[in-house]
């Protein structure tokens, strides 16, 4: 599965995207644990509910199961328009 980062999240991860092992990341909660362990600076933003998550281009808030071909996006609140 692929995870992609946008805006200032990318400044923290230093990568725009990475591939994850679907055998290790089973659901959105495990993905959240993975990113805060790899990028500790994201933890405070996760705790403050600033991070947004999308799976296959749809906003997701609940802990859904993830599949091997899913595209997961992590980003801050939007600022378009």
């Amino acid at each position, binding site marked *: 599965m692929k995870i*992609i980062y*946008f*805006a*200032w999240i990318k400044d923290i991860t230093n990568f725009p995207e990475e591939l994850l092992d679907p055998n290790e990341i089973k659901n959105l909660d495990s993905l959240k644990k993975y990113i805060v362990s790899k990028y500790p600076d994201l933890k405070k933003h996760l705790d403050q509910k600033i991070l947004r998550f*999308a799976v296959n*281009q*749809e*906003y997701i808030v609940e802990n859904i199961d993830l599949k091997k071909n899913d595209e997961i*996006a992590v*980003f*801050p*609140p*939007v*600022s*378009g*328009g």
Partner: protein
Amino acid sequence: MIKIQKEDFNSDEEIHNIKKIHSNVGAVNSFIGYVRDNNNNENVQSINIEVYEDMAHRQLQKIINEANTKWKLIDCLIIHRYGKLRVNNKIVLVTCFSEHRKDSFESCNYIMDYLKKDAPFWKKEFYNNKSEWLSNSK
């Protein structure tokens, strides 16, 4: 119609190209968003807009579909730019086409509200000596 592009656009031409295929349109309402030169008491030099393009198309289409359930719309156009933009450049155009003005007025406002809330675009503003990512929820 949804367009996500780097290039500038001619609002009159874009609106005319849709209007000419709908002779039943009697009301057209547009919103145009521009880069302004001041924000948060800082002199804005330019902005950079990042987009999650696949999701932006999907979310904007959902917003249009929702507007179609609330108002009687004949067509709808959204153009949103990304990349580096300077002061006075256009950022976004939303145009709603309907038979009567109330549908086009109200739906245009609704679409802009939800575009600012849900569409995955992010602005970074550049000032004289620094830059800052913006958030619409602030």
